[in-house]
């Protein structure tokens, strides 16, 4: 990476102007967009992170002081604007709370990253980038990087139905071919992303790599689809983690015969080597606690809701 003199001043400025002894580390959200009832996008300002981020990396977000550390794959970054984008699905207590509290202008208590080993873009000539549901967001930077490196990019994205679709145009822009699938056929072809992969494999016999990101069950199916033809298939794993720096070992995954830590050895791994069943079992580790936390939070929201009804639509 070459360093120009303007970069030098940027980096130095970021540190020389830091006020006080212990810098407040909150990060400000500058844009939010809701894709559906459960999926939303947050863009926050962090010029250093935007400069350092590479496709395939993730961040850890601590939404509030009592919050947990949740890993989220970077969905986009803009080095000029100095922003990083995350796409979040509100499924548990923490993400539902974020859906309710994170708006433009509000701070995130802590964001650390980028973390993980960046994706290997290499000199591939033809690649398939597969995103399932929320996975469309994290695979986007890879599709863009492949395109910018001169590869022929086939995009395959899938959603349950038309209402859940997001970033279709943004994604299509970096694809030479584009296949969109939906479970109910309300948009694109009716079928799963694996059907999209099969179409691409039928048409092209010279695919170098398939990159698939989405729920574990989807990535497993994608890996099985490409296994017979022995096409290199990379998946991005998102197991439960605490620190994201290799220190706790909570994110250990079975890759072939060995154990790897997704946070520092990954999150990208060879899909044909990943033990997805093991990953899916380990993701259930805190199911009971998560349910309890969500119930307790929902009850407190209802109580608070009675006292003060929510004001206006969220933006």
């Amino acid at each position, binding site marked *: 990476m070459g360093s120009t003199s303007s970069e030098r001043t940027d980096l130095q400025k970021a540190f020389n102007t830091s006020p006080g002894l212990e810098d407040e580390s909150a990060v400000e959200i500058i844009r939010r967009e809701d894709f559906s009832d459960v999926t939303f996008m947050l863009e926050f300002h962090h010029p250093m992170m935007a400069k350092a981020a590479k496709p395939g990396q993730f961040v850890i977000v601590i939404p509030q002081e009592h919050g947990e550390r949740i890993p989220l794959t970077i969905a986009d970054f803009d080095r000029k604007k100095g922003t990083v984008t995350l796409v979040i699905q509100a499924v548990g207590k923490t993400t539902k709370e974020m859906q309710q509290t994170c708006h433009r202008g509000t701070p995130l208590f802590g964001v*650390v990253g980028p973390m993980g080993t960046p994706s290997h873009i290499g000199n591939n000539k033809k690649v398939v980038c597969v995103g399932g549901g929320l996975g469309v967001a994290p695979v986007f930077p890879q599709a863009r990087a492949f395109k910018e490196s001169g590869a022929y990019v086939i995009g395959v994205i899938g959603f349950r139905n038309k209402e859940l679709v997001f970033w279709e145009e943004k994604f299509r822009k970096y694809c030479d071919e584009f296949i969109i699938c939906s479970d109910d056929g309300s948009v694109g072809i009716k079928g799963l992303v694996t059907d999209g992969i099969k179409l691409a494999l039928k048409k092209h016999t010279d695919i170098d790599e398939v990159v698939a990101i989405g729920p574990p069950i989807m990535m497993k199916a994608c890996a099985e689809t490409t296994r017979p033809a022995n096409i290199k298939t990379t998946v991005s794993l998102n197991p439960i983690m605490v620190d994201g720096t290799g220190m706790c070992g909570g994110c250990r995954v079975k890759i072939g015969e060995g154990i790897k830590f997704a946070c520092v050895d990954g999150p990208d791994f060879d899909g044909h080597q990943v033990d997805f069943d093991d990953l899916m079992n380990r993701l259930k580790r805190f199911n009971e606690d998560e349910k309890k936390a969500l119930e307790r939070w929902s009850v407190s929201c209802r109580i608070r809701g009675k006292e003060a009804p929510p004001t206006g639509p969220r933006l």
Partner: protein
Amino acid sequence: MAKKKTIRTIPQERTPIAHQDPGKRIKNFDEVALGYGLEDALNESERCLMCPETQCIPGCPVSIDIPGFIAKITAKDYRGAYDVLTQSNLLPAICGRVCPQEDQCEGLCTVGDTLEPVAIGRLERWIGDMAISEGWSNIPYREPNGFRIGIVGSGPAGIACAADMAKAGCDVTVFEAFHKPGGVLRYGIPEFRLPNAVIDAEIDALSKLGVRIKCNTLVGRLFTLEQMRNEMGFDAVFVGTGAGYPSFMDIPGESLNGVLSANELLTRCNLMHAGEFPDYDTPLHLGQRIAVIGSGNTAMDAMRVCLRLGAANVHCVYRRTRNESPARVEEIDHAEEEGVEFHWLAAPVEILGDDQNNVRGMRCIRMELGEPDESGRCRPVPVQGSEFEFEADMIVYAIGTNANPIIGQTSKLKLNKWGYLATDDTLATSMAGVYAGGDIVTGGATVILAMGAGRKAASSMKKYLGIRDTDSLHSTEIDDTITTLFGIDTREKNFARVRIA
């Protein structure tokens, strides 16, 4: 002039330290050892013989003037004692608590040849605690020298190095990946052994020296060491990122739910407050019958945390015996008093799960001690046909850590064959201006050894930058009549570095 003390005239008994009752303390996270009172400290300070040829100082990794600070206590000059301590050690309240004094200063104490050694650690802690409650801090006069120092990691190695560099007049920035500073002091050592308030106070002392601490900053990934040296303008960098990367045993069943590393358990509890779930969002899912594998200080901490969080039974499984245990004797005693059951000479061979992929127990094998290995400890040998099943619903691995790979992945620093950073005797790495120390160089060790390494690296960094070491200058200042040495004014604190165009 007081009469010269002899081994016969000093108080014969080591002054006991009050402890919280085991039955009570396993229900709270308050400190176990309550610390000395004034009478205790004065009595214990009388036990120091003030040996002219001190045995204890060479045992201290940071070379505290031990008789010096004890003499100040005897003279009831407590602030003076603090001044002596802080010449060598910025963190007396922490080190007084967590140093393995029995293997260091106290292990070499002359009194200890005949009686119990002087309780140096307890006295150090007493002074450290007094400094916190009285709000003392020693901020030396610092003439800014324009050098910028970057420190990677705010654990014991990083803060010791930061303090020394700041005292020398450098502009110091510490980078920490977590959202709170302190490193292992924060995430690893539990509240009942080292209260967070003590860490806060000691970090505050660092801030008063002008050190800037930046949290949520993962060096290597947010910016690299090369960038720190080149683009960001740091004249020297110290890497003290700790060992991290917990070891597992590679036996069947390790990915069952309920199997975790002690690092994970302690981080969830100490840093993330999992014990207060759901008021805090981080869960732990504590078991009721917990087996901890390993018998080091980390294992003791993990077990005692589990007891306090409400686990009914906590077991320690170790393949050697109590004598070979790496944990401090005091820690094993405390764990035993609190009801931990020890199973010596046993090693797990397989972890057993139920149909929900949760842990239900483990199969272990009995061991016996064989010939000593290269570490000098007897090698454990499995006893054929002695396998047995052990019921447990949570299994914690506390068998040590490997090198954290992040710095290695993101820089060209030379690593040794185990993946730790390779350094020379001065703790210089293979990159000019980059120094390293603590667990990332040596592998898992102790807080004080890491602090010693941080100070040693600071001394090398000063030499590298051409800053005169104020420590060696200090010794020449005692004689007020001499104002110059080798033609140099003794009041001069440092040389300005000359850059030749």
